[in-house]
């Protein structure tokens, strides 16, 4: 992170115990997480080694499995990257879930209300609507934070619940499939559905997510805006003193992360569900937060974490199918990993060189 404060000459980088720990921390975290997971599996009177073998098999065991893992990693990656931008500015946008839903909602509404759009227009329109939906949902908490100093953690969280309820209402009520009796909307026209590419199920959204990796990197480290964001995140009072527009940076962080989450939501309904309903997310919003944290708020780290967590999810489904282990085990393991990394990180910071 940028150091705005003038510091005394730093010694040449050397392999101190502290830096080794920092590098190795995620690994330790992952191991501890998996160990605790094994403990939980044993509580369920099942063999952890066999269970984990099934997990690996389920996530990477074949072409179909790898596709599933990639498809699951894609929204985590996109949302995780969005979170990274926000977290770097110390904007704790916990509302990814809600922004995901609102992006899906707005984009879905475009698809449902304007089915006559040609494919060339429809796709950009729904993608844009998705981003705007998420952005809008992050805008209000952003303004509340800037104008009233309201904790963004609580506001974005409340907005999560409200968004999910809103989506459930819409899917059950005004937009419900005419003549249908399930609480979901009509199917989107084919122009609004993102197809799989190259004969696989991998769709355009996956590439979009990957595209954002270099974009986020350049944004954060190669632009003045990125510098301001990181300054606001690490030394907010100093940034303000140095004349930087802290509020504008904070607002940007909100809007950008919201847009990416909304986009991810829209892509999810356009590729997996093809309609609006209440159950479009498997808790992506919260997992994305962990992805950003485990990925050390760095695009490459986020990529690795997204794949890892996606593998955990997909593998957990196999564990469920074969051993009856609840899928929520993956949640617990993920969180333990992040907690362990947190602990290891903090330990490494405590040693003042």
């Amino acid at each position, binding site marked *: 992170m940028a150091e705005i404060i003038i510091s005394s000459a730093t010694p040449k980088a050397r392999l101190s115990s502290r830096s080794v720990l920092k590098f190795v921390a995620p690994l330790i975290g992952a191991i501890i997480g998996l160990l605790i997971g094994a403990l*939980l599996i044993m509580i369920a009177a099942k063999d952890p080694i066999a269970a984990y073998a099934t997990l690996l098999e389920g996530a990477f065991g074949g072409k179909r499995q790898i596709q599933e893992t990639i498809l699951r990693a894609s929204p985590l990656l996109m949302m995780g990257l969005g979170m990274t931008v926000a977290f770097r500015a110390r904007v704790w946008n916990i509302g990814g879930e809600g922004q995901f839903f609102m992006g899906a909602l707005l984009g879905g509404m475009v698809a449902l209300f304007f089915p006559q759009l040609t494919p060339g227009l429809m796709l950009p329109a729904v993608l844009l609507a998705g981003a705007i939906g998420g952005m809008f949902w992050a805008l209000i908490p952003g303004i509340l934070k800037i104008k009233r100093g*309201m904790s963004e953690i609580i506001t974005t969280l409340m907005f999560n619940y*409200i968004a999910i309820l809103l989506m459930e209402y819409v899917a059950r009520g005004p937009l419900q499939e005419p003549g249908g009796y399930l609480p979901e909307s009509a199917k989107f026209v084919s122009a609004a559905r993102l197809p799989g590419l190259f004969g696989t199920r991998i769709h355009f959204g996956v590439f979009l997510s990957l595209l954002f990796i270099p974009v986020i990197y350049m944004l954060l480290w190669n632009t003045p805006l990125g510098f301001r964001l990181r300054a606001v995140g690490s030394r907010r009072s100093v940034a303000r003193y140095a004349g930087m527009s802290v509020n504008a940076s904070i607002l940007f962080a909100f809007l950008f992360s919201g847009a990416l989450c909304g986009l991810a939501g829209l892509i999810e309904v356009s590729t997996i569900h093809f309609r609006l309903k209440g159950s479009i997310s498997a808790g992506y919003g919260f997992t994305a937060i962990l992805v950003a*944290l485990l990925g050390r708020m760095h695009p490459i780290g986020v990529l690795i974490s997204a794949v890892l967590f996606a593998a955990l999810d997909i593998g957990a489904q196999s564990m469920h199918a074969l051993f009856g282990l609840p899928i929520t085990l993956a949640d617990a393991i993920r*969180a333990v990993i992040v907690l362990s990394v*947190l*602990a290891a990180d903090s330990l490494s*910071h405590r040693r003042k060189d």
Partner: protein
Amino acid sequence: MDWSLILQWGFLIALLTSAIRLAVPVLLVVLGEIITERSGVLNLGLEGIMIIGGVAGFMTAYFLETGPMADASGYLYSWIALLAGVIAGIIMGVIMSVLSISLKADQTISGVTLVVFGVGLANYLYRQSFSTLVASIKGMPLVPIPVLSKIPVLGDILFNHQPTVYMTVIIVVAVWFFLFKTTWGLNIRSVGENPAAAETSGINVEKTRYAATLIGAALVGLGGAVLTVVQLKLFREGITAGRGWIAVALVIFARWRPKLALVGTLLFGLADAAQYRIQALSSVQRGAGSIPYEFLLMLPYLLTLLVLYLRADQQDAPEALGRPYDRSA
């Protein structure tokens, strides 16, 4: 929907009674967090701790009630279950304390991650034990207070509740007394306002914060257990529905004072109770004018936003809140 139904006595009495009962779990959580935050530790893991307390309490109650000693003394099992919730809360509190106080990790990150851990673990443990079975327990009986509950209207609303409600009132007074009338409370508050000065006057900042966080977490776990064991008598994924987070906001609304916490949570309880009852009313009378239940479910969250908006200037927050204390710094 016939809105005039609301203006009937029966409805209002039921509403207010229900409001008190619904407020109790959240009030316990808020009280716990007030103690913790007064010492300067920002414990955002409330939602996770609450649901762990809830699952611990519920599962203890269930297995005691359906186990070999099923017919043993009346409602003792509920109390044991509540104790289980307290212990579970303390265990979660240990994780938070170690991370925040000894390891000085960022408290926001620790808290949010702890929530994900708690929720995931709670759901896992429940599903693992019950798979698809929908389990419920007996809960606690209403204990009307002898003379007072005979008072018309007020008697029904205030004095005809489960014992946990009365217990919570006592806890409110106890927390207030503890924080403002005892030396321990003074220590906690000074550690939260100016840890360096407190350290100089001989108070062990770390130990005090540990104590405050663990006591707080114990109350949070208790709140979760009261929710599942006494009030709802079942457990489901997401049963806390954000109450832990609402509690964080309510602590701010209460200006870190137990008495205001009582007021704030009662307001919240009222919103919660109103939302249930209006749902019930409008489902009985379908047709134009009935409010979609999803919007009613939004009420608690909207109220929380309003409450936060009104208390936006955190002048009363403990000065050192959220900042790890380093003795050598």
